[in-house]
């Protein structure tokens, strides 16, 4: 079936099987391998992407067909013109990653969180990231990074 999805502002139209999951559509059909697959069944959060600007979804548990006609933002869509998004910069500054496997999901869940709650408390950040697993960095620096990004974004409305 024909599926047309706007990914990071670029239209991708592909002929895929209905059983193609969004994560594999992005990785294998669009060549965007920034979206990772971990558990494959909605537990780990590595595959989180943002749908229609502010809704975080686990792309391993959604069919590409469901995204037809929608806009998807992946980790590749965060940096603009070579400049890291404040969230990416904050993960760098605060050592919010070691191996980096969970990072795309952490970034995209945080991205959606900041759309809904521009100034989240630490507790709210921890709660929102509860469906994203990290097995090496530890969560403290990830939480610090999201707080830093929230502050940066508050200070520069243009980057929201």
């Amino acid at each position, binding site marked *: *079936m024909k599926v047309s999805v706007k990914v990071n502002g670029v239209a991708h139209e592909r002929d895929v*099987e*209905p*059983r193609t*999951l969004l994560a594999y559509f992005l990785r294998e059909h669009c060549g965007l391998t920034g979206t990772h697959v971990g558990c*494959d*069944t*909605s*537990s780990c*959060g590595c595959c*989180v992407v943002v749908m229609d600007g502010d*809704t*975080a*979804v*686990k792309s391993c*548990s*959604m*069919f590409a*067909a*469901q995204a*037809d*006609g929608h806009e998807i933002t992946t980790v590749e869509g965060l940096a603009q013109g070579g400049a890291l998004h404040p969230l990416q910069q904050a993960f760098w500054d605060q050592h919010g990653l070691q191996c980096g496997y969970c990072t795309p999901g952490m970034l995209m*869940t945080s991205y*959606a969180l900041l759309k809904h709650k521009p100034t989240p408390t630490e507790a709210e950040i921890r*709660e*929102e*990231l*509860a*469906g*994203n697993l990290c097995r090496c960095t530890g969560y403290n620096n990830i939480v610090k990074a999201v707080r830093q990004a929230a502050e940066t974004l508050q200070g520069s409305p243009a980057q929201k």
Partner: protein
Amino acid sequence: MIPAAFDYIRAGSADDAFAQLQRLGGDARVLAGGQSLIPAMRFRLARPSVLVDINAIPELRTIRLDDQALALGAIARDSDVERASWITERKWRLLHDVSRVVADPVVRQLGTVVGSLCHNDPSGDWPAAALAARAVIVVRGKAGLRTVPIDQFLVDSFTTSVEEGEMAVAVRFPVPDDRTAGAYQKVERKVGDFATAAAAVQLSLNADGTVREAGIALSAAGPCAVRVAEAEAVLQGQKPTAELIRAAADAASKKSEPQGDLRGNIDYKKNLAGVLVSRGLRQALAHLGVQS
């Protein structure tokens, strides 16, 4: 872990979805949030030959609150409930609590209340909550719409009274009166895991402080969520005391028929069910300003 092949139909309206289901019968499954169905298909625990996707039907996402009931359409998301303006009102406390512990925050963006009821997982959160709140499900069948009380809707593990070709279009929660509060108590090993045990309670008091109506139900306590009518009867018409709460908790422990697994053995889970009912009742009473 790729699902078995299937045909995909994106329904354009509720009428269209129903017509497709009527035409396809038992081969088809409704795709709502997909947060249980899609993992099940990936594990090949479910192999529908056709999916009827209802996600592109805005009329099914409506949440309507009037004097009588709160009606959640078939694709009203868990997160829609979590973020609703009225959810912080005391009388909706049970739904408030549940909406914050279903799966994890990202899964709640797509997961739906009606879908959870239709999936009827033995460890699901919404079935127990719907029992305690005495919800009814609106089902569309050949003869038109009918309402099914939750007690009749939940038939067995992963089985409801929705027949082949039919479709659950909404769930209705009666609007509780102002002397009502509830609580949802869930123990899970980590966010997103199935409940080790969970208890949903809702209490409505009379002006004199006696219990007008009690709703008490358990999850992860048998083939599907179960009402603890014995615990409800213990409280009915009485002023809640520590002794009565203990009696209600004991009734819940007795009623619980959990399976032993890595989350705990049977004795532990039966005990936990009682503990959670007790905690839930105390919490609901505290919301109502009653010492217990």
